[in-house]
C-alpha cells in the first residue's frame, strides 16, 4: 500500500546515481497529477529553458494504482518545448503497475547523460547504461533490442523509449510505452531526448502489502464486477473509441481534409465498424485493467509473388481522425500504415496528422512545394503520408524540422496560419463547437480530456457564456482528482467521488477520503500555478480563422460567442492561478 509520504526516486543522469527521497504532502496533492506538480515545484526550474539539463522529467502514480481496476495510468510531466510551459501527458501500458511494484510513487529524472543511455529502475536495482547502439533506431526496433538487452521480467516490466523524433527534439515527439501506448502530446519524447535518454525500463519486481481487513477485497470484487459485467464499459472494448467516427460524422463534427468539412459520405469506409470487421486482430489491456480497450489492427504487405509480412498497429479514434479523415485517407489498412510510420519514428500521431493536413492544404495553395515537403502531398495519398511521417519525425528538411516544432511555427514562416488547425496544440478530433474550441485552446494539457467540453457541445445548443464556462470550471477538479489517483479517464463513470472515498478508506487512506472535493480543487489550482510559473497566460493562445468557419449540427460557428467563451475562460483561469498563489505561498 502506498504510504502517507511519497517515495520518490530522483536520478541524476549526469552521474547515473539516484537517491530515494521521502516527500510529505500526500494529504495535499494525493499523487499522480498533484504529485507531479508538487515535484516540479521542488525540482523544476521554471526560469530555465525546457532543455536545460536541470529540468526534471517526472513520472508519477497515485494511491490507488494497481489496487483497483483501471487505476492503471501514469502521469508524465515536464517543461514542454511545444509552448515552453509546464505540462502533463498520460499513458497506460504497464508503466503504472511497474512503478508501483518497484516501490515508487514517482520517478524524477534530472541532469543529462553524457552519452545516449537507458535507465533500469526496479525495487532493488538502479542502473544507467550506455546504449549508443540504439541511436537513431525507431521505436519498434529499439523495443526489440531493449528486450534482449534487459533479459528477464517479461510481462512485469514496462519499456519506455523514444524514436528519432525525440532524439532530434521535435515538439511532437512522443514516449512510446510497451509498444502500443504513448505519452504522446506536448513533446515528452523531446524532454527525454534532451537528457540523452533513449529508454527507461521499469521492472515491477516487488509487491505491496495487502490492505488490512476484508473491505478491500470485497470492494475490489464489487468494482471488478461493475467494469466487466455491466454495459458501463462495453463501448470501450467493443468497437472502442473508433465508434466515435460515425457518431461525430453524423453530427457534422468530424474533421475532414484539414477541417475543410465536418462530415463526409466516405465515413462508411473508415468507421469503427469497418475497422473491426476488416482489420481488428485482437484486443489488449493495460496492466490492471480488465476492460481491454486497446484495439490492435493489422495490415500486410506484399513483397513479391505470394510472399507477405504482416504488421500490428493499435488504433483508436484520435489516430484514425488525425491520419485518416483529416488527411482524406479512407482505407482502413492505409490508415494503419500511416499510424505505424508515425509511431515508429516516435511522433505523436494526433499532432503529426494535423500538421501534415496543414502542409497538404499549404501545398494546394502554393505556399510550399516539393522543396519543402520532399514528397508531394495530396489529400488521400496514403503512400505519400507514410513517407512524410518519417521525414517529419526525422527532420529530413528545414521545413519538416520547423513543422515539428508546431504547425503555427511553420505557418509563421510560410504563411497559412489562418487554416492551421491548432487549439493550443494540434487539434483533437472534435469539431463539436465553440466550447470545445475555446476549452482545448486554453485547457491545462490542451487535451480533449481536460474537460468534457466536446460532450457539452453535443448536448447544448443555447449560447450562454456564463453557463458554458461554469461547466468547464466545475468539470476540471473532478478530472484532476481522477488523474491524481491515477485512474484511466474512461473509468470516470465508475469512480465518482463516493466510490473514490470508499476505495481510499479500504486501502488505509481515510484522511484523503474525507476531503476529496477540496483536494480536487487544490490540485487543479496547483497545476495551473505551476504552469503559470513557466509563463502561461491566456493571451499566449489564439484560435485560427479556420475554426470560425466550421459548421456543426448547430449551424455555423458563432464568432462572438466563441471569443466571449475564450475570454471568460481565460479570466477564470487567471483567477484560479491567483487563488493558487495565495494557497501555495
Amino acid at each position, binding site marked *: 500500500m502506498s504510504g502517507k509520504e511519497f517515495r520518490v526516486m530522483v536520478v541524476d543522469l549526469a552521474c547515473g546515481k539516484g537517491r530515494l527521497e521521502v516527500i510529505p504532502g500526500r494529504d495535499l496533492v494525493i499523487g499522480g497529477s498533484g504529485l507531479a506538480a508538487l515535484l516540479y515545484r521542488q525540482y523544476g526550474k521554471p526560469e530555465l529553458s525546457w532543455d536545460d539539463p536541470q529540468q526534471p522529467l517526472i513520472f508519477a502514480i497515485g494511491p490507488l494504482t494497481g489496487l483497483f481496476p483501471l487505476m492503471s495510468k501514469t502521469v508524465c510531466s515536464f517543461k514542454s518545448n511545444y509552448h515552453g510551459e509546464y505540462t502533463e501527458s498520460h499513458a497506460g501500458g504497464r508503466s503504472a503497475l511497474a512503478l508501483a511494484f518497484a516501490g515508487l510513487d514517482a520517478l524524477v529524472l534530472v541532469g543529462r547523460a553524457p552519452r545516449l543511455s537507458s535507465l533500469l529502475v526496479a*525495487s532493488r536495482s538502479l542502473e544507467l547504461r550506455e546504449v549508443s547502439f540504439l541511436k537513431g533506431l525507431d521505436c519498434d526496433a529499439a523495443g*526489440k533490442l531493449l528486450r534482449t538487452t534487459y533479459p528477464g521480467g*517479461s510481462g*512485469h516490466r514496462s519499456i519506455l523509449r523514444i524514436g528519432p523524433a525525440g532524439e532530434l527534439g521535435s515538439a511532437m515527439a512522443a514516449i512510446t510505452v*510497451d509498444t502500443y501506448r504513448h505519452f504522446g502530446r506536448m513533446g515528452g519524447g523531446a524532454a527525454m531526448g534532451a537528457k540523452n535518454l533513449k529508454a527507461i525500463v521499469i521492472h515491477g519486481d516487488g*509487491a*505491496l502489502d495487502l490492505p488490512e481487513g476484508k473491505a478491500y477485497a470485497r470492494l475490489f470484487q464489487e468494482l471488478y464486477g461493475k467494469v466487466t459485467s455491466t454495459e458501463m464499459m462495453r463501448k470501450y472494448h467493443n468497437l472502442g473509441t473508433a465508434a466515435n467516427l460515425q457518431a461525430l460524422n453524423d453530427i457534422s463534427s468530424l474533421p475532414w481534409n484539414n477541417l475543410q468539412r465536418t462530415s463526409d459520405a466516405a465515413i462508411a469506409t473508415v468507421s469503427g465498424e469497418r475497422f473491426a470487421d476488416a482489420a481488428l486482430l485482437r484486443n489488449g489491456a493495460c496492466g*490492471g485493467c480488465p476492460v481491454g480497450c486497446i484495439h490492435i489492427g493489422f495490415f500486410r504487405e506484399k513483397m513479391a509473388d505470394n510472399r507477405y509480412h504482416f504488421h500490428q498497429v493499435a488504433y483508436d479514434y484520435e489516430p484514425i481522425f488525425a491520419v485518416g479523415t483529416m488527411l482524406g485517407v479512407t482505407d482502413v489498412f492505409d490508415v494503419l500504415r500511416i499510424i505505424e510510420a508515425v509511431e515508429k519514428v516516435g511522433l505523436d500521431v494526433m499532432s503529426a496528422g494535423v500538421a501534415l493536413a496543414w502542409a497538404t492544404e499549404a501545398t494546394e495553395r502554393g505556399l510550399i512545394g516539393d522543396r519543402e515537403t520532399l514528397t508531394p502531398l495530396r489529400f488521400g495519398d496514403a503512400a505519400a503520408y507514410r513517407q512524410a511521417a518519417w521525414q517529419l519525425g526525422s527532420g529530413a528538411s528545414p521545413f519538416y524540422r520547423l513543422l515539428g516544432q508546431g504547425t503555427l511555427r511553420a505557418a509563421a514562416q510560410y504563411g497559412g496560419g489562418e487554416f492551421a488547425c491548432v487549439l493550443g496544440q494540434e487539434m483533437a478530433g472534435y469539431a463539436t463547437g465553440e466550447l470545445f474550441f475555446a476549452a482545448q485552446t486554453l485547457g491545462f494539457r490542451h487535451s480533449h480530456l481536460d474537460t468534457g467540453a466536446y460532450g457539452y457541445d453535443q448536448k447544448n445548443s443555447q449560447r450562454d457564456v456564463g453557463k458554458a464556462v461554469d461547466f468547464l470550471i466545475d468539470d476540471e477538479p473532478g478530472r484532476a482528482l481522477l488523474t491524481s489517483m491515477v485512474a484511466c479517464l474512461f473509468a470516470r463513470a465508475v469512480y465518482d467521488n463516493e466510490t473514490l472515498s470508499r476505495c481510499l478508506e479500504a486501502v488505509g487512506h481515510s484522511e484523503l477520503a474525507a476531503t476529496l472535493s477540496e483536494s480536487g480543487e487544490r490540485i487543479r489550482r496547483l497545476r495551473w500555478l505551476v504552469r503559470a510559473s513557466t509563463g502561461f497566460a491566456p493571451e499566449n493562445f489564439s484560435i485560427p480563422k479556420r475554426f470560425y468557419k466550421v459548421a456543426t449540427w448547430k449551424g455555423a460557428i458563432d464568432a462572438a460567442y466563441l471569443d466571449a467563451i475564450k475570454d471568460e475562460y481565460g479570466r477564470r483561469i487567471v483567477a484560479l492561478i491567483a487563488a493558487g498563489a495565495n494557497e501555495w505561498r
Partner: protein
Amino acid sequence: MKQLSTPRLDQCIGCHSCALACARLVHKKVSWHCAGIRIRSAGGLSTGFAASRCLCCDPPPCAAVCPTGALTPRRGGGVVVRKGSCIRCGACVPACPVDGIATDHVGDIYICIHCGRCVPFCPQNCLEMVDSDATGEVR
C-alpha cells in the same frame, strides 16, 4: 481432483487480473509476481501472452527436491503446500520444468494450489477448473 487449466489463453489481453487476484486472495499481497499464475508476454507484446503456472506434474519434481516436506504430492498431480514448513531454500524453483514457481527477494515461494480463485477474475474466459483426469496437460 480439479486443477487449473488455461484452455483459452489465446484470448488473453494481458491485464494481469488473474495474477493480481491470486496475490490478493491467496497470498495476501498486491502483486503481479507473488502469485501462483503469472502472465508474461511471449516475445514482446505483438506475439500475445503466456501463463507461468503449475501444470500438475505427477509425480511433481518440486516435491521430490523439497527437503522439509513443505511441498508434497497432491492427489491428481501438483503439490500441497505447507507454508510453515518452508525454509526458503529455493530448491523447488529450478526443479520445476515449466517455470511454475515464483520466488520473491526474501525467498518465499508462490505456486498454484489449484483453488480456482483466479478463474472468475479473467475477463476473457481464458481459465477453467477441470478434472485432473480430463486434462490433456502434463501428467
